[in-house]
């Protein structure tokens, strides 16, 4: 029975596995430590993309104020939905109904606010309530049935898109509803989705000659970029709030736990079901914010908005270092993934490259990101 006696010390034993002070565990080098940060892929990607387009499209206006505004807005759009998708993926689930939810929310605002004539702020609030409730239903079905969220939300992808076309078609005999700008005129809630902020700064910068002004037309003398769109502000707010919740709070710890190993989390009293359902609601909430920004910018709502957005959100999240299997990921990483997206999509346009190549790029980068993430996961968990 000698082998069962507590062994003391024995540093020179050819021990089968690492105990305390194991001399065979190498110190982790700085580089390796860095490599296991989820944001690494995103940071490298962003730098690469900027250098690449700096050469390819540097003189095309991509990096003048209008150009920057252009790709920042596109990136911010991706960012808004990526934040929700990221937190949900860390909690171990997917939402494929993001795109349909965007279309649905837009039509909902238009129906309540324009067709049925409610004040715009009420229409917006109703839409937020309906959409987050649908998110909760998504989550509830996933948690109660134990089905993969892939299937459940795929069902909602079709259900929501169907209603998004059916409702305006039946009521109004059309699937594009305009007149939103007029209906939202002076509405306090609508303006926090559509306003440009810090306009004074841009006027000032125009006076200093840092940015161009219009030289003709009705807006002569005004700066070409009038302010920072609320779209970008919303994106940044969501990233900061999402990142803080995920990394610094108790709830964030539970989100990681729910995705890392739901059963182990339950054993220590983490309310896994509640956490997962709430993350479905967050995803729906982010989709609704996206829809609001889009609707009030365009002034119209259309039933075909948001198609394929769910995949773009998921790709941004994966580029940002999250694992598809849950339990690991970063909101900042997802935001970097969104920037890569926006810059490449608009950069190809500025560089005059055929736009269809964007899809090729998406596929390639997705593959690279997943391979890198799998490798990183092995380092973290010490699998071989």
């Amino acid at each position: 029975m000698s082998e069962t006696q507590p062994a003391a010390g024995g540093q020179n034993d050819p021990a089968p596995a690492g105990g305390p002070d194991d001399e065979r565990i190498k110190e982790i080098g700085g580089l390796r430590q860095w490599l296991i940060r989820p944001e690494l892929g995103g940071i490298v990607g962003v730098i690469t993309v900027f250098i690449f387009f700096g050469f390819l499209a540097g003189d095309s206006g991509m990096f003048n104020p209008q150009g920057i505004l252009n790709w920042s807005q596109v990136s911010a759009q991706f960012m808004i939905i990526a934040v929700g998708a990221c937190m949900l993926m860390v909690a171990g689930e997917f939402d494929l109904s993001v795109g349909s939810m965007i279309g649905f929310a837009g039509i909902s605002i238009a129906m309540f606010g324009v067709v049925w004539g409610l004040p715009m702020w009420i229409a917006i609030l109703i839409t937020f309530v309906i959409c987050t409730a649908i998110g909760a239903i998504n989550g509830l079905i996933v948690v109660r049935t134990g089905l993969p969220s892939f299937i459940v939300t795929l069902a909602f992808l079709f259900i929501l898109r169907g209603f998004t076309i059916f409702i305006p078609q039946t009521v109004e005999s059309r699937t594009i509803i305009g007149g939103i700008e007029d209906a939202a005129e002076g509405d306090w809630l609508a303006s926090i989705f559509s306003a440009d902020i810090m306009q004074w700064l841009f006027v000032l910068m125009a006076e200093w000659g840092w940015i161009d002004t219009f030289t003709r037309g009705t807006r002569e003398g005004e700066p070409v970029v009038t302010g920072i769109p609320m779209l970008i502000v919303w994106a940044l707010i969501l990233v900061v709030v999402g990142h803080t919740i995920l990394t610094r709070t108790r709830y964030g710890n539970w989100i990681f736990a729910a995705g890392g190993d739901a059963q182990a989390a339950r054993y220590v009293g983490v309310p896994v079901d509640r956490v997962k359902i709430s993350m479905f609601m967050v995803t729906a909430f982010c989709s609704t914010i996206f829809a609001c920004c889009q609707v009030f910018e365009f002034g119209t709502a259309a039933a075909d908005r948001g198609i394929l957005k769910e995949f773009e959100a998921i790709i941004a999240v994966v580029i940002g270092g999250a694992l598809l299997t849950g339990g690991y990921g970063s909101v900042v990483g997802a935001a970097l993934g969104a920037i890569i997206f926006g810059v490449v999509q608009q950069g190809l346009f500025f560089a005059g490259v055929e736009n269809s190549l964007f899809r090729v790029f998406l596929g390639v980068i997705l593959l690279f990101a997943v391979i890198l993430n799998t490798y990183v996961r092995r380092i973290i968990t010490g699998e071989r």
Partner: protein
Amino acid sequence: MSDPIVKMVDIKKHFGPVIALNGVSFDVKAGECHCLLGDNGAGKSTFIKTMSGVHKPTSGEIMFEGSRMNFNSPRDAMEAGIATVYQDLAMIPLMSVTRNFWMGREPKKGLFIDFDKANSTTMSEMKKMGINLRSPDQAVGTLSGGERQTVAIARAVYFGAKVLILDEPTSALGVRQTSNVLATVDRVRKAGIGVVFITHNVRHAMAVGDRFTVLNRGQTLGTAARGEITPEELQDLMAGGQEMAQLEGSLGGTV
């Protein structure tokens, strides 16, 4: 010795037509390691789950510190001071040691987790258990199986467990790691915690046990104190005597 912390009297548990436990009596006192031995299918898992509040017994009494207890959920049992360390579901490999250690009971400073406190406490508690962490940010996945068990045990002890249920903590471990876990059990016992050590390995049980109870086909076959019983007798009880004796004979007494 003192009165038992947990005393379970004639526990029966039926799952529909299946009788999983048919009259099990068991108790554990402060500062002792009570080994529960049984072969696969003897009802060990059902018994642990009854003790830790996952299952409610069909009949029988659970006494906790002298008064009758009715646990409705694992949470109830945890709050009373019964902590269970499951064999493989104790830790989340992708998360850091600190995050695992505090999971479900994260210390807060305002809205946020107090990481200074969480990290330093984790480091010092792990040191007490004889594990020097490289850093509290180290992912649990990088620890060995034995170390993971130890983190789980340290966590239970830190959060004030009076009774620690260990579900086959050594069954998947190598020799050296097993020694480490058994040393940890010894340390915990000396701190005055009652340890329920579930195993089917007689050698491991003999190494740390103060008392031994054998479970066979849903029934307890009696409890023996250390020194009153030999490993061979325990082995026989566990396997149901006769056949095992023959089998053992044919294998030259090595099982």
